[in-house]
């Protein structure tokens, strides 16, 4: 597959299949789980309201007809209205989207700044005493749930030291703790991945050549190994996305950060199903697009991946 073809429509088709699959699963689960009218209208809806919802969503019609009507509404981007305030669900989700994007991007940047140097340091001298200690710390951090760590951060920085606000979305100072917390979901895993990548590159024959012609360890690491290892990292950024989104859901709720993660938990609690569905679809689409971009970048910059694709491996 050529890059041009890749830039064209095949990924759009994949995205369409994906969204179609997700919505189909949600549609049938909603019917399997009980009376969808109650889920859509809320637990304490009156009989009149239930009847209205059934008529509005065509729940009194046969299942296949309901399904096609549902798909038709999806094609018109009509995901229903929020039960909380009646505004269109998709609109509500898109309004909360930028706050999540900001937090996710900040956390990703911070995680990279922390993980790349420490991972490289760990791989450069695998048996060093400092590295052993660091590896134990990472092992412990990997076992600490992100929200527990976030609570500890709040305890220390917002309450004991009172340096930073514990909650809310305001000036840059209020960004610090949420960013640190979301990044903490990524840093241990990312560090180990960088370590593994750099370690693998250090075994390559070009490293031996570079050493043989008299390059210092520093030059070998910074000029030869790191660029190659970081290429592999582009693919890993895509894989890290799942952790970021999970982190966003938990941390946004903890800090009352008005993004889609917070909205998802609020809507789940209020049984506001249209909004939950809209958020799920928006997240599916986002994850897919970012993964596609990461793959594209990798193809652009890494000739090995390009050749593998040209031979029809990927």
């Amino acid at each position, binding site marked *: 597959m050529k890059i041009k073809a890749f830039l064209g429509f095949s990924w759009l088709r994949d995205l369409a299949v994906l969204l179609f699959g997700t919505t189909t699963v*949600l549609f049938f689960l909603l019917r399997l789980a009980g009376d969808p009218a109650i889920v859509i209208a809320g637990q304490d809806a009156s009989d009149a309201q239930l009847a209205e919802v059934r008529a509005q969503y065509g729940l009194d019609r046969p299942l296949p007809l309901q399904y096609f009507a549902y798909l038709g509404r999806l094609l018109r981007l009509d995901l229903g209205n929020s039960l909380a305030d009646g505004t269109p669900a998709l609109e509500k989700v898109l309004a909360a989207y930028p706050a999540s994007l900001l937090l996710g991007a900040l956390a990703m940047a911070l995680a990279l700044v922390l993980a790349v140097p420490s991972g490289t340091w760990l791989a450069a001298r695998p048996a060093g005493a400092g590295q052993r200690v660091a590896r134990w710390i990472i092992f412990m951090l990997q076992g600490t749930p992100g929200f527990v760590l976030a609570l500890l951060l709040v305890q220390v920085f917002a309450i004991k030291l009172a340096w930073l606000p514990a909650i809310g979305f305001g000036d840059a100072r209020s960004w610090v703790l949420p960013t640190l917390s979301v990044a903490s979901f990524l840093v241990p895993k990312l560090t180990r991945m960088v370590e593994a990548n750099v370690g693998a590159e250090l075994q390559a024959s070009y490293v031996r050549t570079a050493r043989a012609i008299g390059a210092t360890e520093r030059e070998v690491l910074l000029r030869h190994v790191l660029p190659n290892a970081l290429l592999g990292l582009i693919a890993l950024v895509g894989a890290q996305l799942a952790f970021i989104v999970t982190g966003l859901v938990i941390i946004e709720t903890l800090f009352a950060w008005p993004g889609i993660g917070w909205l998802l938990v609020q809507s789940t609690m209020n049984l506001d199903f249209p909004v939950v569905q809209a958020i799920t679809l928006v997240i599916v689409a986002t994850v897919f697009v970012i993964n596609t971009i990461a793959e594209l970048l990798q193809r652009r910059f890494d000739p090995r991946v390009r050749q593998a694709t040209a031979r029809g491996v990927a």
Partner: protein
Amino acid sequence: MSRSIRASRLGLYAGVALLAVLAVLAAFGPDLTGHDPLFVDLAGRFAAPFGSEHLLGTDQLGRDLLARVLRGLRWSLGVALCATLLAFAIGTTLGLVAARSRSLAGRIIRQVTAFAQSFPVFVLAVSLIAIVGNGFGALVTILGLVTWPVFCRVVQAEAASLLTREYVLAARMLQMSTLRLYTRHVLPGILASLSVLVPFHFADMLIAESALSFLGIGAPLGIATWGNMLQESRSYLVTAPWLMLVPAVAIISLVFAANLFGDGLRRRLGVST
């Protein structure tokens, strides 16, 4: 070399011992404390740990924290274990199907598994809670249903490679039945990599469950679970930090035990993942 082998064995035994102690505590602990985890004693609120008849102190309603954390242990172990088993069963079955089948079903399974690798399944779990509701059975089902691809991916890859081995081809030529082929030749070959996944998955389920409860959408409100305890502790971080520290330490040590066990098992079985 011998040093690292000894270290890994030590980790494995330590993990097993720690898990065994925690399992015994979960089974008998709640009955041995002499306190009801739900008993409210407003006169004895916020008792500090180690100071009174309450070993780990009391919470904002005067409930005994030791009794609550042990009851929470039972809940956490139960949910995480059942969810892991469910994911294991679904993932292994579908993985074996996908390893061999060139049918549409096999293709769909492979596609779903590949996508699930980069998809935040936690989000899916939250949206399923909006549909199905919460509680023990619902949580186990939802967590199992959204995480089976973890097992499926490994089973499918390893089984596919085993199926091309000569001894499997020979067995097939000898007209061995598919069931026998799988139970005698394929499953034993993938058991090592499969069993290493279990403790790590258990740890993930544990974290996921307590995170959901912490967000207020996992365990039903009112019962004693670690997530619920952490959620309630948020209002008292200044005045009574032990309300947060007790369940936090509990989660970290259980996850740590599972990771230690998994890591030791991985090195012992020589599986590289």
